[in-house]
């Protein structure tokens, strides 16, 4: 399963991922490490998502870019989680896993299907 997640900020995201056992702290070689929990193949820190590009004059930013609300993560795991309202279904995903369709987690109509379908 690929989960696309949005949180108010990074701290809230990390707290939830740890609470669900997606990120765990393990000790290895005498040191604490952040690691993936059972069944987790990847946790990707997406961070900020650009909605409106900045207005630039040369390399000078005239108008600041506008970012989507929140701080974003993608999780790939074989486990089932209830993320509640943090789980989102973006219409225009900004991140994909290599070899996976960017829309594979969401129902969609093939683009070549017209009104006849």
């Amino acid at each position, binding site marked *: 399963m690929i989960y696309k997640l949005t949180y108010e900020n990074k701290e809230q995201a990390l707290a939830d991922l740890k609470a669900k056992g997606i990120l765990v702290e*393990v000790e290895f*070689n005498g040191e604490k490490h952040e*690691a*993936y929990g059972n069944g987790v193949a990847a946790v990707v820190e997406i*961070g*900020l*998502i650009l909605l409106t590009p900045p207005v630039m004059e040369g*390399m000078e930013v005239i108008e600041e*870019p506008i970012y989507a609300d929140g701080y974003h993560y993608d999780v790939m795991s074989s486990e089932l989680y209830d993320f509640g309202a943090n789980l989102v279904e973006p219409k225009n995903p900004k991140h994909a896993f*290599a070899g996976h369709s960017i829309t594979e987690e969401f129902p969609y109509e093939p683009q070549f299907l017209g009104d006849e379908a």
Partner: protein
Amino acid sequence: MSLLDTASLIVTPNGYKEGKLYSVIPSDGSGDMSVTRATTATRVNSAGLVELVPYNLLSWSQDFTNGWFAYLGSITATANYGTAPDGTNTSTRILFTSNNQIWAKAISGLTNLNGTFSVWIKGVAGQTIAISYGGTDNVVTLQSGWNRYSVTAVGTIDFIFIDTFGSTATDIEVWGGQVVEGSTAKDYQKTETRLNIPRLDYSNGTCPSLLVEPQRTNQYLKSNDFANWSNNNGTNTITPNYAISPDGIMNASRWVATGTGYRYNLYGLFTLGTTTVSIYAKRNNSGTQKFGFFLNGSGTVDYELNLTNEWQRFTYTFNLTNEYQGLSAEVGADVSIYGYQLEAGSYATSYIPTTSASVTRNADVISKTGISSLIGQTEGTLFVDVYRPNQASPFLFTLANSVGSNSYLNSIYIFQLPNDKMVVDCFVSGVKQFGIETSVGITNGRHKIAVAYKQNDAVVYLDGVLLGTDTSCNIPPFSAFEVNNVDIGSTSNFDINSVALWKTKLDNATLAQLTTI
């Protein structure tokens, strides 16, 4: 009998299939390694070309019922219907009910609209059937028996079809579908999920090594579509598909600097901190060529590429503080470029193509459980031959009685510490039995390491030299072997030339000989 004949397990980058790396010893399958990545990835193939693994973009290439769907009426498809060209019972029968119907499948992962769909088809000789790539049909006339047909096009949609538009056949068998980028069909490559294929990489020479990398994300969108990067100051022109690129396809771009300036793409998402940018580039003429990366909004060449007439991959690591980075040049530069990558981390990893979104390649994990019979229990030897490509690219090999986050509690592991030192540790029920490590960081390049063990007698050799011994240790039970381990936060990045186990503790003279580079 040679030393290798006495090994209980030998794994080399040799035979493989999806999710599996075959062991040389034993040859009955009991030592085959499980390979997990859950994503595709790229490698350098035996021809020295950057290649998607697998290059066949069609999943489940021998099952035309998996992910395929009918459009415009009822179509019946039956998998494993008859004898395929390879003699197996894996052909699929497709029974159309009329003309003007489509049997379709979506294709993901295309980074180049120029692609080729090929498929073996058997039907009534003389009848016609249409095959389509990206919306372009090729109506082919069927020959007697199985024959491979293909269609090459510049696609406009991410779908392939087998359809009956403008054709006469309605009852056919198909097998061995393949979609590749470029105009050459390539040798057929069987696929299933496409996601867990070991990468036999030829970056280090003519012999392959097994590439093991950490999870990384290419955050830069349109990684090989420089003409459509969002911003430039009008001082450069880009010619797409100008030259044969490092992936062997005519998809490298030409950058001609008519003035001094820059081009970059707003990649839409980013995380700040230690970041590495990389690109393949070469010069197109012998004139002045000042060309390179600009960083953190400078717009000028901050890291100049030492260009030659041959393709090279250039990398640069810096502290990313904003989302404005890309390429810059001074007037006169005439350069071919391919495959821009921006990834969090202190070194570059294999190229991850992107189009409209950033893309993540997951970590490579190689493991085998349930092999207590192949691992020496009271005594034994673990040998690894490894290539370390760059600083801060650690490796990890673990003999344990489980895999996962707690596997180290009963284990012997070979690990590269963050300070570049290498350590061999042994734990029994979480109690450290011995720890033997180098006094200084190990160098980049190839290393051969062996740890031989039995109760109160452990020894480690590195590159032909005795590294250390321990005479007061217990040995845990072993049933598993693991390379890399995301469950303990491992970020391994290295190439494996070979791994071997013996169920005896080899003597020091043999260990020295075995580990000599």
